[in-house]
């Protein structure tokens, strides 16, 4: 079985090469068939691998030495175990659906750009596969930066709009800040352990001192902050919505942004041994969850709401990782991939129908025009809100329960965030699909349900969002029903051995589930009532609301305390320091030579007498010096 591992990333790579190099010769249908076919092929291989892993355990394959110098040996190797095979399924499965969706969504593009789009998308899948399949941190880093590159290319896909390219640049640069942390962690590992292979690192983890582990985990987490959009590096993700909507669904919701969670789940043993880092992650995750949710409350752009929602959900995943609920976090990655991809694709369908209108204040009443989109979107909203028995309920519940076990305070805040989530999601839903249509007549005239290639992925994802949660039913309902935990247990075995599991009593869990469900339902009904007959009014964005609508002015803050000072400083370096101080010093030396030679020239005044005088004076001086054997004479004696 390990012989076919390389096929998984190979197919998307081939797809990328064909579409990238042959973009002038291929027709649009052919392009989409090649691209989607490539992903479908790797999905099939992934399924085979998954079944294999499920039955016989993890497999690995090494191909060639990427770097082999002295004691640093980094093989180009893949490792397929429970965790990575699960991610493979998510990436290729959802990836395929989104490729299919894109083939219709992007149909307006010329074939040249159409091929470019699919080439980028395939390249992204390739990089993401490298990220999860790598058997060591360096291969993971290759994928890590590769997805950053594809994210850059796809956000800036419509490059004629200069603002989109700013968003792309911002995403790449902010990711790079995190990447620096990742890279330093890798150096630290190489330095202390001499290896970056997961197997060796985790086996030798006892050789690291406590301080080392804390620093390595913190640095890795900084990498995750950038990639998975956590405070303070989250601002790129909402801007990344400049890219085509399927891209947002695939990269900025389902897969790339969860790379940070994958990485931490992968290194779980390191994190379990670094309780301070874990606490830090939990706090950052929770803070991000709440902060982003609060912003999402007042956003009017359909994609922006979903983007902040993604940031917030990622925060929950990090909360899960921080409290040691690794399975819960991975579970949430999976369910989130289902329903957030669904929501984004649904939003894409809406935007498609509305002719690129994204402001939900100008929508409304789309229920009757877009029935399939409407129903699937509603299911997605229910799933993300955490209404039982939709998938989001199970995964979120697992994280929050673990948070409660760690510290009830974390639970209360987490719950508050979950309520905000259900509020803003149903605000979004109600504004978009309920009430009367608020757009122009022209738009209304053209409203239509999207083609099959777009609705099929919606239906599949909706089904997954509804039933996806049943692979992780909490123990409280039925003993041994948590299939996912059982499946992933080899990955987290090392951590589990170190932590004592403190189960909550069944009655507490029931109470928690009961109250949270009740509260969420109340919020949903409240939002439904409030926004189903929405009329725009002027005064709604005042005071605190204005603060939220402007995203707490974080972008402005970063701009004024980081971007502007750096710009000013580099302007100062360029125009003052470089020009006047450093080059000035160099030119100054030159000028000094010229000036002093101009002065020195005056001695050569053409008066023979003065020449002779100087000669005589110096002869006398040397004579005296010689007689008295001064240092200078000794120096000359030595020289000659």
């Amino acid at each position: 079985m390990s012989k076919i591992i390389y096929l998984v990333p190979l197919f998307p790579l081939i797809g990328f090469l064909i579409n990238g190099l042959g973009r002038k010769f291929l027709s649009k249908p052919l392009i989409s068939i090649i691209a989607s076919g490539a992903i479908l092929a790797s999905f099939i291989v992934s399924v085979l691998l998954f079944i294999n892993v499920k039955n016989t355990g993890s497999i690995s394959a090494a191909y060639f030495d990427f770097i082999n110098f002295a004691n640093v040996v980094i093989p180009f190797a893949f490792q397929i175990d429970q965790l990575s095979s699960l991610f493979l399924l998510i990436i290729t499965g959802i990836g395929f659906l989104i490729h299919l969706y894109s083939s219709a969504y992007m149909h307006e593009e010329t074939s040249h750009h159409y091929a470019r789009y699919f080439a980028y998308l395939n390249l992204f899948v390739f990089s993401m596969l490298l990220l999860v399949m790598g058997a060591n941190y360096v291969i993971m880093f290759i994928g890590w930066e590769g997805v950053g590159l594809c994210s850059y290319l796809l956000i800036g896909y419509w490059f004629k709009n200069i603002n989109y390219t700013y968003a792309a640049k911002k995403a790449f640069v902010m990711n790079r800040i995190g990447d620096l942390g990742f890279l330093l962690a890798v150096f630290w590992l190489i330095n202390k352990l001499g290896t970056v292979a997961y197997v060796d690192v985790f086996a030798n983890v006892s050789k690291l001192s406590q301080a080392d582990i804390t620093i390595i985990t913190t640095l890795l987490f900084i990498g995750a902050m950038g990639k998975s959009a956590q405070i303070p590096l989250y601002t790129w993700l909402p801007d990344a919505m400049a890219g085509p909507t399927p891209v947002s669904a695939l990269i900025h919701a389902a897969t790339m942004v969860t790379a940070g969670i994958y990485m931490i789940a992968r290194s779980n043993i390191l994190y379990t041994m670094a309780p301070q880092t874990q606490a830090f992650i939990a706090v950052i995750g929770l803070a991000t969850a709440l902060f982003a949710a609060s912003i999402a409350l007042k956003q009017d752009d359909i994609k922006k709401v979903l983007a902040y929602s993604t940031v917030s959900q990622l925060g929950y995943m990090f909360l899960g990782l921080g409290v040691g609920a690794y399975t819960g976090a991975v579970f949430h990655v999976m369910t989130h991939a289902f329903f957030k991809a669904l929501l984004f694709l649904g939003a894409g369908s809406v935007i498609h129908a509305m002719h690129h209108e994204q402001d939900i204040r100008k929508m409304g009443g789309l229920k009757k025009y877009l029935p399939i989109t409407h129903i699937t979107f509603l299911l997605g909203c229910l799933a993300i809100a955490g209404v039982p028995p939709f998938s989001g309920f199970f995964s979120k519940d697992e994280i929050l329960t673990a948070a409660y076990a760690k510290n009830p305070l974390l639970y209360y805040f987490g719950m508050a965030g979950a309520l905000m989530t259900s509020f803003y999601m149903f605000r979004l839903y109600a504004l978009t699909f309920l009430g009367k249509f608020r757009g122009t007549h022209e738009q209304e005239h053209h409203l239509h349900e999207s083609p099959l290639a777009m609705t099929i992925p919606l239906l599949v994802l909706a089904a997954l969002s509804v039933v996806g949660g049943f692979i992780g039913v909490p123990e409280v309902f039925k003993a041994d029903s948590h299939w996912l935990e059982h499946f992933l247990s080899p990955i987290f075995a090392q951590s589990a051995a170190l932590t004592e599991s403190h189960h909550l009593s069944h009655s507490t869990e029931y109470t928690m589930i009961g109250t949270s469900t009740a509260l969420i339902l109340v919020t949903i009904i409240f939002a439904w009532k409030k926004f189903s007959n929405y009329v725009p009014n002027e005064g709604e964005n005042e005071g605190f609301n204005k603060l939220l609508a402007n995203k707490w002015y974080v972008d402005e803050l970063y701009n004024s305390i980081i971007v502007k000072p750096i710009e000013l400083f580099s302007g100062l370096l360029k125009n003052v320091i470089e020009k006047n101080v450093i080059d000035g010093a160099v030119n100054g030396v030159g000028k000094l030579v010229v000036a002093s030679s101009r002065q020195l020239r005056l001695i050569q005044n053409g008066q023979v007498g003065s020449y002779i005088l100087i000669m005589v004076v110096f002869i006398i001086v040397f004579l005296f010096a010689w007689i008295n054997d001064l240092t200078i004479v000794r120096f000359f004696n030595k020289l000659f």
Partner: protein
Amino acid sequence: MIPVLLIFIPVFAGLISFLLKNERTVKGWALVSSLIVLATSIGAITTNNPASTLFDATWLPSLGARFTVSLDGMSKMLVLLTAVAFTLVFVATNKNEYKHTAAFYGLMLLTQAGLMGVFLATDCLLFYFFWEFALIPVYFLCSIWGGKKRIAVTFKFFIYTFVGSLFMLVGILYLYFLTPDQSFSLNSFYSLKLTLTQQCNAFLLFFIAFAIKMPIFPLHTWQPDAYEQSPTATTMILSGVMVKMGLFGVIKWLLPIVPLAINRYAMPVMILSVIGVLYASLIAIKQDDVKRLIAYSSIAHIGLMCAAIFSQKNIALEGVLIQMFNHGINVIGLWIVANAIEQQLGTRKLSELGGLAVTAPKLAILTVIMAFANVALPLTNAFIGEFLMFNGIFQYNIWLAAVAGISIILAAVYTLNMVQKIFYGNTVTATEKAIDIDNNVFLSLSITAVLILVLGVFPQPLIDLTKSAVHLLFVK
């Protein structure tokens, strides 16, 4: 015999090209000659037979200087770089028009000979001879075919590097008088047993020359001006190959001879280098001229290499060697882009460009590859070198590595800035009627892109080529 061929083929080709009349013949002749050199250098890297990698003849018997040239792992790589660089340059700038074409190409070929000599010489006086020999044609190239401010700039460039070289000459003589057999040969320099004071003296004398040539902060100000004012073909050689002379000098002529002094001055030099890395990166962010932007970017990369050398870790040194080659390829790629833009649109100002991806998609795609190689994205060739170098710096001092690491963020900022300002957005007056690149530029950029990707995925051959050389440097 191969090293001699590598030096004398370009010399003869250069001299002959002075005599040619027809412009197209000259260009063809230069290209053929560079291809022959390329073939020879490929032969050079595959051979290990001492008879063909070493050549020794009497040169100045009264001084004890001999004409000794030889190929080791390090020089094999740099010879290959020189050969590849000149071929790429001749292909890419084939359409450029020059007055006195024959003289231009003649001087270019002589420069190649000088560079080959620098990388091959194992006699210190011969090394010095070629060091200056490579400088002189470049001086004429810049001062005759350069931009508006060429006279002042070339004068500064020449004086600056020449003053440095004179210090080195004093250093060479200093070591020469310390050798027991009064010889300039590398081996007798290597077997010197010097005290710390002697090492420091020699180090300072040599290092001034190398530091100016690299250049490291704050001795760098000649470089952006020289790059900006030189004809682009010369700039490519200057930044692709010539700045490597300084790094090469430190590795081959300082590290094994004065290890104690290197160790003593490591910290200040590394701090200066790291300051230079950040300083140049920050300035690059604000540049409006593409050529100056690339120049500052190059200063930042070279600064990192210098810091890596002084970390004295073999892994960092391996990184530097690989990076010397890869940086040469990448930066030439960027210059080809700059040249293509300037030749066609007549401007290099970012503020006057925009939307070129609409009219020149091929150029845009290839430039993006160059740009991401410049920010050392994994699976491009630059990543591997930077990875190894940072590793070594990290081993030496964690904080230096962390601070120098900021440059990978800043590199992303200025490189993507450049890509964005040139290619994205709507077309402007300058780019409205632009057409895509011609076959020459396309060919040379494609070769560069292929090299970038292949060496990025399979860097091991380069590592194997230079491994033994690095090992030998540390045996001493």
